[in-house]
């Protein structure tokens, strides 16, 4: 166990605080390491790779625990894998893909841990078909506040299970996770790309056609206004089969499951905000023009699922004040609100890099899980922008008015009231938390800010 006073922030690099960062392993923790951590009255929170944008994986004045990766145990027969919570999706995919398996849900980056994926009940481009990460789990092993390690399933302890999936680390430290996998024939995806001139056309195309694809996502240009408001590039696809590769005479046929994602370059620290409005406008224009009107192609897993992983530390592009990501979901009927929010953001003039629109399917059952049927929009905003707080407060109100909610893994500026209004099962969650953690051992900055503890 190694511990050190460290300044921590999320991926957005906003509101840093100082905590004791403890690097340890599941073995050390279960062999009594927790007793060491409980001596600090400010509590403990688990941290994965710090890819949540705001402050859920930091605990000012307290302890923050990082788990060493741990083993990957694949059961090829059953198509399930049991994996240490500190393992990243990157490591897991490098193990699984060559063996013909894929993770059931992949967020937009491979650099998240399994623990973080469970704690945020992450979603991918396939939510409308497959639901979120928490819908594909057989078992969780957790370290609870009483110092005991316990393996649970959805049947053995439904309360703790559904309070933990999406529970932002506030019910205990997840140490091992058993995941049901998706069989794949190749490491390529067959992708249909369409350029869509405006928001109305986009919504119509997604509504009428998404069900034909396992994966679907639209990248929206949030600088374009007027008749081009909401112009976007829609990409939809699925894992390519060997037959599809053969029909194309694709060179990947020689080794269809090869997987070796590149990391190209890292953005150096200390650069000023590079994402000025003209720069973003130029980039968005280029990116839109470059996209084909309609086109089918084969893409790599990285190219299709994790394009941003090709640039290391890209969060530094926003300069020293950092940035925040705003993600909400509104019911399908609430297209007027969705359009109004897009208009407000475009009109605000804050340079937002590409925004992402997706359709969510049914909920997983996680009491604090974010996905619920509707449209989910995700956009980046520079944290230093003047008047940003007022804009976001307005957007929060618009989202809540139509029964929407905000994603805790992205949240960095909401309030206890906003979360309470968006999550009708919050009180159930709080009651379970009180039961499994009566003395309030698990605590994070986000939990303090949002009155979750």
């Amino acid at each position, binding site marked *: 166990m190694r511990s050190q006073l460290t300044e921590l922030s999320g991926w957005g690099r906003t*509101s840093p605080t100082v905590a004791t960062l403890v690097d340890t392993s599941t073995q050390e923790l279960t062999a009594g390491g927790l007793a060491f951590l409980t001596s600090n009255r400010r509590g403990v929170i688990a941290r994965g790779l710090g890819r949540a944008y705001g402050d859920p994986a930091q605990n000012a004045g307290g302890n923050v625990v990082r788990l060493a990766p741990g083993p990957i145990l694949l059961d090829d027969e059953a198509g399930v894998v049991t994996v240490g919570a500190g393992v990243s999706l990157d490591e897991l995919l490098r193990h699984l893909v060559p063996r013909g398996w894929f993770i059931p849900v992949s967020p937009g980056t491979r650099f998240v841990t399994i623990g973080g994926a469970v704690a945020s009940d992450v979603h991918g481009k396939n939510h409308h078909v497959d639901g979120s990460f928490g819908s594909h789990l057989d078992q969780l092993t957790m370290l609870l506040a009483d110092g005991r390690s316990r393996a649970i399933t959805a049947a053995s302890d439904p309360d703790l299970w559904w309070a933990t999936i999406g529970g932002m680390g506030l019910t205990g430290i997840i140490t091992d996770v058993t995941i049901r996998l998706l069989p794949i024939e190749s490491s390529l995806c067959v992708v249909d790309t369409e350029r869509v001139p405006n928001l109305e056309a986009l919504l119509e195309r997604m509504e009428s056609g998404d069900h034909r694809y396992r994966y679907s996502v639209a990248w929206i240009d949030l600088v374009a206004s007027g008749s081009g408001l909401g112009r976007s590039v829609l990409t939809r696809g699925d894992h390519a089969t060997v037959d599809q590769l053969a029909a194309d005479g694709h060179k990947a046929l020689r080794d269809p499951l090869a997987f070796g994602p590149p990391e190209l370059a890292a953005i150096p620290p200390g650069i000023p905000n590079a994402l000025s409005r003209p720069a973003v406008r130029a980039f968005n224009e280029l990116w839109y023009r470059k996209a084909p009107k309609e086109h089918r192609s084969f893409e790599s897993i990285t190219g299709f699922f994790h394009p941003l992983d090709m640039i290391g530390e890209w969060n530094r592009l926003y300069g020293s004040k950092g940035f925040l990501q705003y993600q909400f979901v509104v019911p399908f009927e609430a297209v007027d609100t969705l359009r109004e929010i897009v208009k407000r953001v475009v009109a605000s003039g804050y340079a937002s890099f590409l925004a992402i629109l997706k359709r969510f399917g049914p909920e997983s059952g996680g009491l604090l899980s974010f996905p619920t049927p509707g449209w989910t929009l995700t956009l980046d905003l520079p944290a230093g922008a003047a008047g940003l707080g007022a804009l976001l407060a307005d957007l929060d109100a618009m989202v809540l008015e139509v029964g929407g909610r905000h994603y805790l893994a992205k949240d960095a500026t909401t309030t206890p009231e906003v979360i309470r209004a968006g999550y009708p099962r919050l009180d159930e969650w709080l009651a379970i938390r009180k039961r499994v953690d009566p003395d309030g051992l698990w605590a994070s900055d986000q939990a303090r800010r949002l009155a979750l503890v």
Partner: protein
Amino acid sequence: MNNAINDPQTVLVLGGTSDIGQAIVAKLATTSLRQVILAVRQPDQVDVEQVAVGDADVAVVGFDATDTASHEALIADVAEEYGDLDVIVQAFGQLGASDLQDPIASAELATVNYAGAVSSGLAAAKQLRLQGHGTLVVLSSVAGVRTRGSNFVYGSTKAGQDAFATGLGHALHGTGAKVLTVRPGFVRSAMTDGLEEAPFSVDPDDVADAVVAGLRSGKSVVWVPGKLRYVFGLLRFAPDAVWRKLDK
């Protein structure tokens, strides 16, 4: 906890009746702000309804800068009751007379403005370190940058407070606790009521704007107005005779 754009949720003002202190609180009243605690000499004299803080709650506690022995417990108690203190403003202070005839009153002024700032500043620092986050805002003054013959006792207390605050900021580096030292010029407030205005005069709201901007961007020193930084950069080195001439 502050949010991602550094809006605080809980603010403690030491010297809670101060015009500048209250202007700061009013400017910090975003949708994030939940609780303001005014620490004042006479709690029963404060009408909390009169304090402009949006939807946040206002509480009042007793505080005397001269009762240095009480400061540590006071701040710990406030944190126990209201949770983490995101911003603590040191807004108390007196102008005093600064004549050559009254050593006792001058020593008392030093106790309020300097000793009180040291003890409450250290008490605040202890709490912020424990929390691993938070900012102590210290209302210093340009009067301490170069002391004038007409208010040298006050000026010397502010010089001491300023040196303490900036040094404390260095001492706290790496703990998550921060210090924002604020150097206003002449501010039109209760303290200066009836005095002739100096050049570069500002209102408490201007000081508050500068403090909020400083908190947002994580600065360690702000001057109000900002150009005083350059003015004093020169005045500090003005010949004594010139400096005396300016002090009239």
